[in-house]
């Protein structure tokens, strides 16, 4: 791909704090104009990565290019990157207008131009009438908008957002998610968004990097991450997932057989995924909504097992079932669309079907 189309290129980034390895060999590239999310539990290194890009922290090893230029020697205040901080970090001693104008003032932009740019950006984020207030006098949602305005008024190449919606209540969050996404499309700025909220990442992002223990576990579109998780961590971090382990018994024509605690399972095995060997341990993932259960034994398909319903949780649009097949507990989610499964109750015997095309082979050893 053409060099000029990458906003961020990271290669083997490492960062240690004492004995803690916050980042281990992190490499990735982000396209210009992309809405990119870093998703992971707290302590996974996503904020550290954001700070390295902002220049607020330096890597111990590795290299980072911003807009094709090596960022190694560029201090934070000279990078074409701005940040929306988790705590917003609005200057309490400056009013909203002065807060937004801060970056332009530091760069020596003439005051007339500063005024018009600040006016315009305040209009964009709909805070025109807050100019004379101080940060202590505005609400959380308003602070979020000010922090956003203060960053994008500088017209950065890349905007970094550190859990920008974390402190807001759910309703405001949904509204601002929409607004952020719309804003990003309109401005065409590359957004790098840190979050631990999987739904937020799925809804907003073009691509998502799922991080765990200082590594990127998988970098893909939201759909790919959900449908084709590569590791157990990704499978379980995004939504819920049934994990089944076993040993390979046979490898056939695009189909492999695995001996599991449930019994023998067959699944679709494509050549481009992990190579298998007879007797090797493999892990399979299956989303609960792709697990079918029924009272009658279905005919004409494989991977059918009999179990006992342990728990039924009614959730309005869908119902969640837990059923035990031998020692294995499986989760199933069924849409409440009037089908026969409504008649299943706790203690009922039922059959479950693990469709071979729905089983995803994970890369973990």
């Amino acid at each position, binding site marked *: 791909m053409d060099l000029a189309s990458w906003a961020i290129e990271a290669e083997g980034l490492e960062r240690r704090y004492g004995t803690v390895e916050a980042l281990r060999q992190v490499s990735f590239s982000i396209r210009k104009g992309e809405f990119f999310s870093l998703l992971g539990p707290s302590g996974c290194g996503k904020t550290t990565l954001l700070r390295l890009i902002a220049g607020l922290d330096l*890597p*111990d090893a590795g*290299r980072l290019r911003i807009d094709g230029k090596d960022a190694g*020697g560029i201090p934070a205040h000279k990078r074409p990157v701005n940040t929306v901080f988790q705590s917003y970090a609005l200057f309490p001693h400056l009013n909203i207008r002065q807060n937004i104008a801060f970056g332009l003032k530091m760069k020596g932009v003439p005051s007339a131009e500063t005024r018009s740019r600040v006016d315009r950006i305040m209009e964009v984020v709909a805070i025109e009438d807050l100019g004379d207030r101080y940060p202590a006098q505005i609400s959380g949602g308003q602070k979020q908008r000010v922090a956003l305005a203060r960053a994008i008024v500088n017209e950065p190449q890349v905007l970094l957002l550190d859990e920008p919606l974390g402190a807001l209540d759910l309703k405001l969050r949904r509204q601002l998610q929409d607004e952020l996404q719309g804003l990003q499309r309109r401005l065409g700025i590359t957004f790098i968004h840190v979050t631990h909220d999987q739904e937020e990442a799925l809804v907003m992002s073009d691509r998502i990097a799922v991080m765990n223990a200082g590594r990127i576990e998988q970098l893909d579109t939201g759909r790919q991450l959900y449908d084709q998780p590569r590791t157990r961590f990704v499978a379980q971090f995004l939504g819920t997932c049934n994990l089944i382990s076993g040993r390979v018994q046979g490898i056939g024509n695009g189909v492999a057989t695995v001996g599991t605690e449930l019994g023998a399972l067959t699944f679709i095995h494509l050549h481009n995924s992990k190579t298998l060997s007879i007797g090797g341990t493999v892990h399979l993932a299956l989303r609960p909504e792709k697990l079918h259960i029924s009272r009658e034994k279905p005919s004409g398909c494989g991977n059918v097992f009999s179990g006992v319903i342990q728990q039924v949780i009614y959730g309005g649009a869908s119902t969640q079932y837990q059923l035990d097949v031998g020692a294995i507990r499986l989760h199933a989610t069924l849409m409440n669309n009037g089908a026969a499964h409504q008649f299943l109750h706790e203690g009922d015997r039922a059959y479950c079907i693990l469709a071979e095309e729905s089983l995803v082979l994970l890369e973990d050893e």
Partner: protein
Amino acid sequence: MITVRRDKAAQKNHVHSERDDRLRSTLTSGPGLMWMLCFLFIPLLAVVAISFMTRGEYGEIGLPLTLDNYRRLLGFGILGFDPLYPAILIRSLALGLATASICMVAALPLCFFIGRLPLGWRTAGLILIVIPFWTNLLIRTYAWQILLSPGGWICRLAEIFGWISPGTGLYPGVFAILVGMVCDFLPFMVLPLYASVEKIDWCLAEAAVDLGANGSQVFRHAILPQILPGLGAGCILVFLPATGQFVIPDLLGGAKTTMLGNLIQQQFGAGRDWPFGAAISFVALLLVMAGLWFRGAKQAGGEGGLL
């Protein structure tokens, strides 16, 4: 090849930032630190050095190096054992201890009293404790001379109760020193203790009552452990400076109540025996260090900060 280059680049980055940090810390902390080294650390080193030197005939400092100054302080003079200096040392420690104890006994009910006041009054109660502390110590001390001298109303009251014989005063003497000390150091006890009292979890006391503890048991087992840190801090803050106090014993004590501070002062005044004065100062310094170390060891890993 690429890895090597990458490591080098990172290394260069790192060294670069460390050198910058040194420049920044030199520019900010440097002058202040230099000042403290020149005018505190070196003078204290001088104290230590001089304490091992000999006093010349005219009070000048000279060689040979000797331990005589410390021996004298411990009572081993040229003429055999002399309890004068050890007595002063012990008297100072006892005075410090007594001051700390009285302050503790006075501060405990006071802190609970303030703690039970309505919110706005609490701050006022504390500020009222602190305000006298900010008025000059000399003034407050010589005022006690007036208050405790013979014929004053406090003395007359004491005469009526038969505590003192008519015509004598409560000043000068150990009693006057103690009064002056407590008056000066009470805030040092009240402030840390109040900080603890304010944080007391009264549910523990209620639980203790619920479990059948009586008043003193509740205090001992449910309240005391919670205020112990504040009590400890207060005791150190009173005991250490009280032991080395110079002005209060000087103004309120008599000839028979020489304390460590007065002894030091004598060596730099009329006595002009700097090596001996330095030795006493160094002992006082060690005492403080020991106290601080003791406190630091007790709350190891606790709150950081300078205090």
